[in-house]
């Protein structure tokens, strides 16, 4: 299960680096694509980096079709305060741009599952695949326009 989560995160980050190389996040002095799993960070980002795709993992279960296929729901939160130059009136446009980026990140809906606990990552022989993102209505909190999108991630449980 951890391999599936790591593979999904890594896939989105790698794709964001291609789709929009300028959408980066600097944490602890290191710059990287602005896709993070909240559970992997040692400090809560809160609302300090809204223009970041923040993943959190929700319920997981076995698919009830008799196979060993499992699923896990992933919630992605992202948003924008807008820019000072535009007096923050561009927060809707930035959110829409991030919507489009998310759709591009998820367009090819599979990736080879790897065990990222090893170096180099070890291919595990199966793929993860996922549903189209379902985008919720944006909400405005303290001047930030935020959206959550939900994706169901499918994977085969292999004990890793």
């Amino acid at each position, binding site marked *: 299960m951890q391999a599936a989560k790591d593979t999904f995160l890594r896939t989105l980050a790698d794709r964001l680096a291609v789709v929009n190389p300028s959408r980066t996040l600097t944490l602890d002095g290191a710059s990287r694509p602005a896709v993070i799993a909240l559970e992997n960070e040692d400090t809560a980002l809160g609302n300090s980096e809204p223009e970041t795709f923040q993943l959190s993992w929700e319920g997981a279960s076995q698919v009830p079709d008799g*196979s*060993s*296929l499992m699923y896990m729901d992933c919630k992605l939160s992202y948003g924008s305060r807008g820019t000072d130059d535009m007096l923050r009136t561009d927060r809707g446009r930035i959110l829409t741009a991030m919507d489009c980026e998310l759709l591009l990140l998820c367009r090819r*809906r*599979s990736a080879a599952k790897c065990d990222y606990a090893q170096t180099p990552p070890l*291919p*595990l*022989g*199966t*793929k993860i*695949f996922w549903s189209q993102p379902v985008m919720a209505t944006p909400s405005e909190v303290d001047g930030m326009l935020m959206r959550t999108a939900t994706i169901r991630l*499918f994977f*085969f*449980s*292999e004990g890793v």
Partner: protein
Amino acid sequence: MERTGMQEYFGEVRAFFAPANRATETGTVFDPAVSFDLENPPAPWVNLGLVRNFKRVAKSTMGAVRTGPAGVMQIQFRKLVDARVSLDFCEWGKLQMALAASSQHMNVLETTGTQLQASGGEAKTGQAVLDGSTASLILMDPSVLSNYSVGELVVVDVDYAAGMQTLGTGITGGVAGASAMDGDAVRRVSFNVASVAAITSTGLQLDAPLLGGAPANGARVQKVVAFVDREGGSFFQEWSALFALEEASGGRVYFHYPRLQASAPAEETVTQLANATSSSSTGLNTTALHAEFVAMASTDANDGESVVCYRSYVPASGTPAY
């Protein structure tokens, strides 16, 4: 090795069609040993986009030789080979329409405005194609290029001449009828249609190569303003088809029909566009082109067997064979 990779889940069904040679009754070969890029299929395969309600039906029947008072089966044999396919094309286009209508598919040429006809009236005179043209660049007299605009559809093909039996360069779009045909008859049914992507100082740059290849000698250019198909007529579309199940969990599956003939009249599948946030109607429908086909015989060059379709499975790396 994990057996889970053998449980396959797939995404959408993608359709690709390529011309079949009607004279020799041979189709375009798809070799599963050669990688096939679903986003950029190799020529001559044409990407026709997503299809829905894809259904394969095999109507082949078996016979048996039985012996003895109890009629115990001794030998089984095939006495009828028949395979059919039905689907809905999600995208509208010239080839999708042609395949879904089964009959002759026509280009409605830009007209002079006189002699109105249901399939397009008297057309404006075609402009001559100059030597050196390619399937993507149509060289023309520079003085006529101002008549064209980027985004317009054009057809590029030869004039009809008495005695022609099949119509269309490279791809048969129809057959000569019993009644007299005008000089534009070939261009009315030709599949050598493309959109003008740019206008250079010497000609028209097309958005995609003409399906039939470089223009033949004597070819002319005419604008296409619409497409039309008709219920009736004597012509059946015949193409090679390849359907791919997009891989999700691992492997990819192909269904290859070397020769597929359209076998159903023009029908549409209408689906109401769902309103995601309420049960009220959006007032919008999506209309897909329903198509049905029958598979025609093809000879497998490896062993000479006569077959009608192939199913290929390309497993993901590391997947066990059994």
